[in-house]
């Protein structure tokens, strides 16, 4: 478990804090702390960085006593990772209840039945289990890249995964449950969803998503179950199909929901193992056998209220039948999907930029010339949107606004959210551009008899636009890339499409290249056009550079 080492590192940092250390040093220590805890102790790399930081800290404080402290700590850190052999297992704690999730009582700690299963299995094998946080979508790729030894995360065997890795025998049998809003009387089975063309949400990259995709349902992938059930509650989708453990944890107690039909599709949770680790597979299988028989698993599942008689099929039997889903892949379909996602990306980028460019004007004017209250409002707006991550803002808009009755679809939320965010940046571009125009230009205009509006429109604005255009182009390209944050609210734009398709094919490289080509094909013409426009506006100054003796 990572906790003791984390505490050790904390202590080390606390010890060092009273000394005068540059701010950056502390930041890098906590970065490394994070990094260190996230990867396996077998990885020398993180240790090397720790050593390096300690050395840096030491050379900076230059006190002989501190050297001893650091030396002792280093020895302690090293010792803590030795001793019992470690079985590192990957799991995604974000929205991962009841599998692996952040302990509400102690946010520094993770809990979940999968952790207990992993602990039990490791103990049975005479090892110590250690959780490595990872991303659910890319969990197979991470396993193959040796970020951890095995996967314990409610992991289903599927035909496409079987091509990449091997599985242990199942330790839990789950079924899928369809959930709808209480007021919905139409939907009583998955078939009803197809017949009425209702949208079904589910977790990305799981058995349910494969089922829905292969059967060509109108479905939406979600990065975590919370988002799916929230969207169901807010009416953005009509039904959610989820493994029963998640359904139990997130939906059953919600009075807004009801079950639609009985559970179906018997699936299994297994341990994901790298292909070459057949020995490990055997050891894990025999450990699972023992733990199923001696009731250890039953105890854990009962504790988490997940036990049903269904599980009795597992104990003592060697060949349990369960359904295996498959993810088909077709390059033409994939390219079509990417093109569709690219279209959404373009829509997001252009829509958001339009909002930003327009809204930036009143913000800039209000900030520069408005009465005090307007000025304060504009400043608060600008600082808020610049000072908080756009991801957090999108999540806030998507899940926060429905609470007060405004429930926008995902793409519109992303469009408006990115627009509001970039408006703050554009306002600052405008402000700088207007301040770059000499105030004497106003005086000249006035002395020629122009009134303020005319002077602004004909004299000041064209000059400010010239200054503003390059940074605005820059912002637009940045915005183009920032559309990928819309993934957080399940908008199917290009980056989301990439992650999903790459997961299906495991061809991160090739698809990545294709997606980059898509992005470049969209952003290059833009930058090209913007540069032409800039040059057109700057033509005179360029000529001047060439003309000698002026």
């Amino acid at each position, binding site marked *: 478990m990572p906790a003791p080492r984390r505490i050790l590192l904390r202590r080390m940092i606390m010890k060092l804090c009273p000394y005068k250390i540059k701010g950056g040093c502390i930041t890098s220590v906590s970065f490394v702390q994070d990094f260190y805890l996230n990867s396996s102790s077998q990885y020398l790399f993180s240790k090397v960085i720790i050593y390096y930081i300690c050395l840096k800290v030491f050379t900076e404080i230059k006190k002989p006593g501190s050297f001893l402290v650091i030396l002792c700590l280093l020895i302690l850190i090293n010792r803590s990772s030795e001793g019992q052999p470690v079985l590192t297992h990957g799991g995604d704690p974000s929205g991962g209840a009841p599998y692996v999730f952040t302990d509400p009582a102690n946010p520094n700690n993770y809990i979940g039945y999968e952790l207990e299963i992993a602990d039990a299995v490791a103990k049975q094998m005479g090892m110590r289990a250690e959780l490595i946080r990872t991303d659910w979508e890319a969990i197979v790729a991470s396993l193959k890249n040796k970020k951890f030894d095995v996967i314990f995360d409610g992991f289903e065997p599927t035909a496409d995964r079987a091509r990449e890795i091997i599985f242990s025998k199942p330790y839990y049998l789950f079924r899928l449950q369809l959930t709808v809003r209480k007021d919905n009387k139409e939907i009583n089975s998955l078939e009803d969803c197809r017949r009425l063309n209702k949208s079904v949400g589910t977790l990305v990259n799981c058995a349910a998503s494969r089922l829905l995709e292969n059967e060509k349902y109108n479905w939406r992938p979600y990065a975590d179950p919370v988002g799916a059930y929230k969207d169901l509650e807010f009416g953005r989708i009509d039904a959610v199909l989820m493994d029963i453990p998640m359904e139990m944890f997130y939906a059953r107690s919600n009075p807004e929901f009801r079950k639609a039909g009985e559970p179906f599709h018997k699936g299994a949770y297994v341990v994901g193992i790298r292909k070459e680790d057949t020995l490990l597979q055997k050891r894990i299988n025999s450990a699972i056998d023992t733990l199923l028989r001696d009731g250890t698993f039953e105890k854990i599942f009962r504790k988490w209220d997940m036990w049903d008689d269904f599980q009795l099929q597992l104990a003592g039997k060697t060949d349990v039948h369960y359904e295996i889903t498959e993810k088909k892949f077709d390059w033409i379909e994939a390219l079509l999907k990417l093109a569709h996602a690219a279209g959404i990306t373009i829509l997001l980028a252009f829509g958001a930029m339009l909002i930003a460019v327009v809204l930036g004007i009143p913000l800039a004017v209000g900030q520069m010339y408005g009465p005090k209250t307007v000025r304060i409002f504009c400043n608060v707006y600008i600082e808020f949107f610049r000072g908080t991550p756009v991801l957090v803002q999108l999540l806030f808009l998507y899940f926060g606004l429905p609470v007060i009755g405004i429930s926008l679809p995902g793409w519109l939320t992303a469009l408006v959210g990115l627009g509001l965010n970039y408006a703050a940046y554009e306002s600052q571009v405008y402000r700088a551009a207007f301040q770059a125009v*000499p105030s*004497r*230009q106003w*005086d*000249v205009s*006035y*002395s*020629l*008899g*122009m*009134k303020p509006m*005319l002077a602004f429109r*004909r*004299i000041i604005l*064209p*000059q400010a636009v*010239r200054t503003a255009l390059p940074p605005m182009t820059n912002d637009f390209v940045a915005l183009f890339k920032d559309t990928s944050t819309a993934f957080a609210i399940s908008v199917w734009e290009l980056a989301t499409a990439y992650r999903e398709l790459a997961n299906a094919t495991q061809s991160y490289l090739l698809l990545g290249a294709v997606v980059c080509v898509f992005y470049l094909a969209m952003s290059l013409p833009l930058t090209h056009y913007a540069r032409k426009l800039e040059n057109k*506006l700057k*033509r*005179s*100054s360029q*000529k*001047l550079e060439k*003309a000698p003796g*002026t």
Partner: protein
Amino acid sequence: MIKVDSLYKRVNGTEILKNVSFEFPAGKVLGIIGESGSGKTSLLMSLSGLTHFNEGTITVNSLTFNGEPAGGNKEFIWRFRRQSGIVFQHLYLFPHLTVLGNIIEAPLHVLKEKRSDSEARALELLKKVGLHNSADKYPDELSGGEQQRAAICRALIMNPVVLLLDEPTSALDPQRSADIRQLLLDYVHQGHTLVIVSHSINFLRGLADYLLYMDEGEAVEFSETKEMLANPKDGRTKEFLSHF
């Protein structure tokens, strides 16, 4: 006629202009001389109606401006400003417009003239200053002297009652300086009124009919040019002139 009566201007408690008074008839040229920071440019800005002042009055032609602060009679201020054309030390040509565009901007949009009329008038002016071949160039393609002439044309096309110039020769070599001087002389001979701020006595000699010596916001001495150069009355004027 231009008349300045007991002018005071204060900024943040500092007196920038202290009790400035003088008067000279139309069709004449006034040169304002003095050290940097003596209030020359502030006085010029006040004459143009572009800044406010605290006490006193300025009469240009038949309009008397009492320096009322912002929010006063806007229409009056617009009319007062229209009477003068100003050429700043750094010119401030509109960089996004051609020379011709700079000059016809105000006639087109303020006087609402037809474009062909404005262009004809502008080209006539440009021809007089020898810039008609550069009409389609942008300001930063011009030399300093050409820019100066373009800026003068831009002010003149609005037919101002008085033309105000701030340090018209500061960026010019002697030859170009002489060209501008000749240009201004021609303009004066047509009966126009000029106010020129300059630290160069040589530039003003033979051009200005009157001189005003300013020091620390005060109008130290005001008299006809020949009189002041030959026989300065105030000690400070004498001291200043002795540098030339």
